[in-house]
């Protein structure tokens, strides 16, 4: 076991080549910090990525790594994890890689619930191709490919994941190091696919896209930190909350007859609640934390169980016997 590993053990000898000021640096630092705390031997850790800025990630981790092709990381990781359930697999992807060119693999891996972790860096822009809108960019986004503004309605990564039957869905923010670390650990502890959207600032092509939730001076008014079993409260003075008005959520000011007991209590096992929170958009606060977490059999374990059962029932395969099955006869 990796008992004495430190953050440094997870730093590769390769020079990090993201733009200065990129949110990816903070994510990399936190992942390297959390790794030794997970109790996994370094040689059992594999980072797999697709294409894009985020997908350079594996080169900087001193573990096994695979920088693959655009959008296919979940499929490659599935092949690896199914046949090597002993490994600790992480997929690093972005809003373009994971939700556009690789959208199909993403939804299918989520429904299958293969036991690995997906870190989706969402900066709502194409960085590596230098600034086109992405499937999470807002309508009206003016970019090089949309000089008159994008008319493309965006995906919401959280509700896409929930809709794809994900068993673990969370959101965190690149600069919220402590929260990010907690989410990484929660995702890692989860058996099945853990989907973690990380709001990540691209300071070159989409600077301050998440300013309201990351700027220290204002973020408390916009971030709603989800905690299982606790009422939905936010605000600098923790004096605002989410209450149901019939079937619709509303922001209420605590006091004047409104108490915590009137507020919605977060329940990670409630899919309807997760969808409701996933759809929060300004002026509602932006939820961060674990939206949804339920136990469900994993694809890799189920498949390996079938293999074990077959072996228990039929014995280890004998190739010579196998060839002699079917319609056979002997010619003397």
């Amino acid at each position, binding site marked *: 076991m990796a008992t004495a590993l430190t953050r440094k053990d997870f730093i590769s000898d390769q020079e990090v080549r993201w733009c200065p000021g990129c949110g990816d640096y903070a994510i990399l630092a936190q992942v390297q910090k959390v790794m030794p705390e997970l109790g996994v031997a370094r040689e059992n850790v594999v980072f797999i990525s697709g294409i894009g800025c985020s997908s350079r990630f594996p080169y900087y981790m001193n573990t096994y790594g*695979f920088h693959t092709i655009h959008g*296919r990381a979940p499929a490659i990781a599935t*092949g690896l*994890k199914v046949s090597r359930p002993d*490994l600790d697999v992480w997929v690093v992807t972005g809003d373009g890689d994971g939700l556009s060119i690789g959208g199909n693999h993403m939804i299918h891996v989520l429904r299958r619930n293969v036991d690995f972790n997906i870190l989706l860096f969402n900066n709502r822009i194409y960085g590596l191709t230098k600034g086109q809108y992405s499937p999470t960019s807002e309508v009206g986004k003016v970019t090089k490919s949309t000089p008159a503004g994008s008319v493309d309605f965006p995906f919401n990564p959280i509700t896409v994941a929930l809709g794809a039957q994900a068993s673990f869905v969370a959101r965190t923010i690149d600069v919220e190091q402590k929260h990010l670390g907690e989410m990484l650990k929660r995702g890692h502890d989860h058996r099945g696919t853990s989907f973690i959207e990380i709001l990540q600032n691209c300071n070159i092509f989409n600077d301050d896209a998440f300013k309201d939730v990351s700027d220290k001076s204002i973020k408390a008014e916009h971030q709603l930190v989800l905690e299982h079993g606790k009422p939905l409260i936010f605000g600098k003075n923790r004096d605002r909350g989410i209450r149901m008005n019939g079937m619709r959520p509303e922001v209420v000011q605590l006091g004047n007859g409104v108490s915590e007991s009137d507020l919605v209590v977060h329940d990670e096992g409630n899919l309807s609640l997760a969808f409701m929170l996933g759809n929060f958009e300004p002026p509602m606060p932006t939820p961060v934390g674990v939206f949804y977490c339920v136990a469900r059999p994993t694809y890799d374990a189920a*498949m390996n169980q079938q293999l074990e059962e077959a*072996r228990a029932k039929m014995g280890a*395969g004998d190739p010579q016997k*196998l060839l002699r099955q079917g319609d056979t006869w002997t010619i003397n």
Partner: protein
Amino acid sequence: MALPPEAAGQAAESHSLAGGGVEPKRREKVDHVVIRFAGDSGDGMQLAGMQFSTESAMAGNDIATLPDYPAEIRAPAGTLAGVSGFQVNFSSNEIFTAGDEPNVLVAMNPAALKANLDDVQPNGVIIADVAAFSDSNLKRAGFASNPLKDHSLDKYQVFEIDVTKLTTLALRDSGINNRAVMRCRNLFVLGLVSWLYQRPIESTEKWLAGRFRKTPEVLAANVRALRAGYNYGETTEAFASSYVVAPARIPAGFYRNITGNSATALGFVVAACRAKRPLFLGSYPITPASDVLHDLAGFKNFPVYTFQAEDEIAGMASAIGAAFGGAIAITTTSGPGMNLKAEAMGLAVKTELPVVITDVQRAGPSTGMPTKPEQADLLMAMYGRHGESPMPIIAAATPADCFDCAYEAVRLATKYMTPVILLTDGQLANGAEPWLVPDVSKLPEIKVELRTDPNGFLPYLRDPETMSRPWAVPGTPGLEHRLGGLSTEDQTGNVSYSPANNELMVRQRARKIAGIAREIPPIQIFGDANGGELVILGWGSTFGPIRETVNQLRSKGKNVSHIHLRYLNPLPDDLADKLRMFRKVMVAEMNMGQLLKMVRADYLIDAVGCNKIQGRPFKVSELTNRITRALEG
């Protein structure tokens, strides 16, 4: 292959000698017979054909089969589009094809008759289920009048049998409903034809027992229909005699009837066993490759992982992931699917991971004719990827050869750390032949040594002989490294944009693949080993028709030889010299001339093509005509 006239002659003679059912019937000897079973796609003709083939193989004949079925699962009943056929050639001699022209056509309805009549040899036997020749069925098949009545079939020997009524009578108190009774008609016909050629029906009964073990009443009905058909042949006055095709002189040993897809699946399993690694298949269902997935899904205990992916790309991608983890990783597909896998195949080339991509070729372009064979994916296999991304390509020649080729593909992939393409086609996939089951311990060694020693480890440090890089899998302490699609530095595998290094790596990979040629056995020329007038060069499933044609022409004194390639990339080192020993080179393939282009481009040999793009194998008669003209020209 055409039946020798004498065999057909005997068949014709016997019909005129219809006798009583009291005395034991005569048995006449024939050399070989081609039967085509044809009916609606729901009539169970594939099943009847397969079982008849197995019976014939067990009777000691050499066999070759050609299933021919529509892409539609159930086209409207009684229409030409819905006709499904299965042709089997069984012989007391060695045979290479399922035959050009059937001697016997079983037509379960007018559409089956109409769709196949042109192929039946003059004087051939037609067994028709008269019950199906209703006015509406005749109209649906496009007959203006009933061919059974209007003398349009006078040049054939027609046996009108009310299969529907006879099957219904036989199953009168079987307790199964009318629909189920109708589904036993194929067994009645199989029984009848089995009697006609004195095939043992025990193997079919055994097969039925396995298939219907959970529904004893259905099993009993099927067996009863089969036996009723057999006994009907013996007792009816319609058939004066039955025929015997003596066993072929086949090498002694343990045999199994096998289709190409089954042989492919077995080749992969056995290769993985020899490599002592698990087998992983990532695949998306596609005709005509899906049976490989089906077969492998039944071999879990070996262990075999079968992952039915969300698409073709994920099939390939998951195989790459499994290869990274140390599995014998494969993907199976057909042409349209290989297009989709191309980018991921390039990643496997670049990262030098062993994956076998099987393309069970079908007629294209686009969706084309999914159930029909073609060989038009060769140039895609050669060049259908961006950048310089060479891959070894091997092609199977017969259904049983699919086993050897699948096994060889794994051996090459793991030895040279490279993706390998295995080309088969729809004809091989579904065609069957007797297979002398090999002794697993005598197959070529597949030695996989995963790297464990961290001392001096570099991900791209090459073996001096094979030029392959080490296979270092996650979970191995001290070998942590990163692979990727970006251009990488020699030995270290670190990302590098150095122009000179990029060329070095491109050339290293090309040399590695080219170097496989030293393993290819010397070319065996069938015919004139020292050269001659004309050589036919072929690859893949054209083996049977070419060999049969060349065999026949040589027996008539024609100066023609045959070279058949298994290795298409790299091509054998001695190929150019061997071809140059002949005055003329003709490349016969089921495409517009793809191997032809390669041979002309690589060797500047002025070869000519012999091409067919009809979704059907070459007929011996077609090749004979073409070769005869070439010899004269």
